[in-house]
């Protein structure tokens, strides 16, 4: 139990005034070096902590503190951890999932929002916030009328600050680009890291897919879309350095699968890969253990494992230790290294979410597209 909660209950059931003072004074959840205590205040038949940490139950009951309307649950949580959660509050036999009313920290994603628990020692990296000193990049739109999908697709283009056509730039194509901008602060990340010279000024193409579970799952059309349609259009319109070493693909979850697949299908085209929490389902024998959406992924990953070839020269790969995909990512690592790829691999005490991917972007981008920091003294 957290010391603050122990103090509150030390003399027996606290009265309303003490509970109110406790709720006003403390920050929730209650974080200590050894773990976190989640607290809910309100009438209910039951309250459950719902979070998605590999190895822990998806639902853990909070216990009512006798004589009060407070509910609490302590879980062990190592330092520098970050987890997302909700409360399931059961009233009149019906459970309702709620954001933690006592915690303002939230993370959003395409499915809504979660409350965020920042464990002992964790802080959001300062380079993810807007820096008034950093020069801002700009955005442009590129419409592709003819694509491998047989339909029009739009690509958003990020041009670094002080972009000029007389200079040539590396290229990074990011899957789920709008989500990276919205949920992973990608604009701030790019602006800040380029401004600080940690990442080379680069052109970023932000792609989208209306059917990502299909197109990102090892799909031939999507690989052609990237290698022919997007790359061809960008070559024609923008000053790219245009070597494999200066062309990269980035993606998270299924987006990472799409990136690896395209690089594998078109070797020598994309020399840099930034893969976050890749959904690299595979099977050694029989069926994989995931949902049917992973069927084409497993077919691709199994084929890749049988003949990895040389999809890229350098790769940054990360995964949260609290997501089940850690097994697949760890499994893939030796194969990638044995294939001669210079892989930098990082694990984080985090889950399958956008803030995890945001927090790892500095390490990945600066590894694959190093800026002139060492040489430049402005």
């Amino acid at each position, binding site marked *: 139990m957290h010391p603050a909660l122990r103090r509150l209950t030390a003399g027996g059931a606290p009265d309303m005034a003490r509970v109110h003072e406790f709720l006003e004074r403390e920050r929730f959840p209650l974080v200590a070096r050894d773990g976190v205590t989640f607290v809910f205040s309100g009438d209910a038949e039951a309250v459950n902590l719902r979070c998605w940490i590999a190895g822990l139950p998806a639902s853990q009951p909070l216990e009512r503190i006798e004589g009060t309307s407070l509910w609490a649950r302590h879980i062990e949580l190592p330092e520098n951890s970050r987890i997302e959660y909700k409360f399931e509050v059961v009233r009149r036999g019906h459970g309702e999932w709620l954001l933690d009313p006592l915690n303002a920290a939230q993370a959003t994603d395409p499915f809504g929002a979660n409350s965020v628990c920042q464990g002992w020692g964790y802080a959001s990296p300062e380079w993810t916030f807007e820096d008034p000193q950093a020069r801002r990049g700009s955005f442009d739109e590129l419409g592709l009328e003819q694509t491998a999908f047989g339909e029009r697709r739009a690509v958003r283009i990020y041009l670094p600050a002080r972009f000029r056509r007389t200079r040539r730039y590396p290229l990074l194509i990011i899957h789920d680009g709008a989500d990276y901008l919205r949920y992973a602060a990608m604009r701030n990340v790019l602006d800040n890291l380029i401004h600080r010279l940690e990442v080379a000024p680069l052109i970023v193409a932000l792609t989208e897919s209306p059917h990502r579970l299909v197109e990102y799952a090892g799909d031939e059309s999507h690989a052609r879309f990237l290698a022919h349609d997007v790359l061809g259009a960008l070559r024609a319109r923008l000053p790219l350095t245009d070597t494999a070493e200066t062309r990269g693909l980035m993606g998270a979850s299924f987006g990472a699968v799409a990136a690896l697949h395209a690089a594998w299908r078109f070797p020598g085209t994309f020399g840099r890969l930034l893969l976050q929490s890749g959904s690299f389902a595979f099977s050694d024998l029989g069926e994989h253990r995931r949902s049917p959406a992973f069927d084409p992924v497993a077919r691709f990953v199994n084929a890749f494992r049988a003949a990895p070839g040389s999809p890229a020269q350098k790769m940054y790969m990360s995964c949260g230790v609290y997501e089940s995909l850690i097994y697949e990512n760890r499994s893939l690592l030796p194969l990638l290294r044995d294939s001669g790829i210079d892989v930098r691999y990082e694990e984080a005490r985090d889950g399958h979410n956008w803030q995890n991917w945001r927090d790892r972007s*500095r390490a990945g981008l600066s*590894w694959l597209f*190093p800026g002139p920091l060492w*040489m*430049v*003294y402005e």
Partner: protein
Amino acid sequence: MESVTLLGPQLPEPNLRAALTAAGLAGPFASISAGWQEREGEIEELQRHVGAPVIDLQIYARSEAVFAADPELRDAHRARQAQLQEMQELYGLQLNHAKQAARELFERGANGLAPGPLLRVARRRAVAALRRLDRAHFAAIRRVHSQFDARFDPATRPALRAAVQALRHDLADARVVLIAGGHVAALLNRLRLLGAASWLRERAVVAWSAGAMALTECVVLFHDRPPQGAANAEVFDAGLGLVRGIVALPHAQNRLDLHDSARMALFARRFAPGVCITLDPGACLHFEVGGDPAATWPRLALHAATFQLGRDGALGQLPPPAGVA
């Protein structure tokens, strides 16, 4: 050489104009912004700040034109750069191990107690090994430059000779040359190609950040918190040597772990008797001719907001400017 003034970064708040006033320097001005590479010559802000016209000397563009007109010189220049790069990589490998040994010795016994005699000896030897490595690398760099200079006498290269003549013509009316920061290698290479050590000595020079580094004898690259890499300060190149005896450290507050006294002590001792001087925003060091030519420094006539790294790793005040008791 009338004078040399070294400044820190000019962002977010420039102090160039204040430094010019303090040093009694007035135009006409010429500028070198080769460290900005393809942005060379975008000096509108600079002109606004000094409040006077500034002639852009186009060092970067002139160098590119020389290379285009003299492919043999260009190829030799590239070969030299490739050689220097390989030397830098090999030096870096050796440095990594030597630095790690020295660092562990400096951290050992960093508990407030005076180190014992054996530890003191071991530390001295570790620093001596690092210094030998740095000096050998520096000497090798100078040899490479000397060999190149002997092979390519500017007088025998028409394109280069013409470029320097045109540059001297543009420079004729300038009393003060302003050298901006930026990419230190890009800046230094082009200054060297165009013989800047000679024509800069004829005028007052005010340089900031990478510009300041380029005017010293030995350019040391440093950053204690890069997102990737070993973070070992390294001897990078021979500078133009207009200012002797100092190692210029622009952005020291941002780039160095100044609170890590073991790390800073090692830094200071590696480059002694060179004095490691911080050049953060607002910093100003003004040197004038007239000092003892054999002295380590030219005559330091003025300084503000700069500190020197002591052998104990702490930042200390600079000696009082000449003429000040």
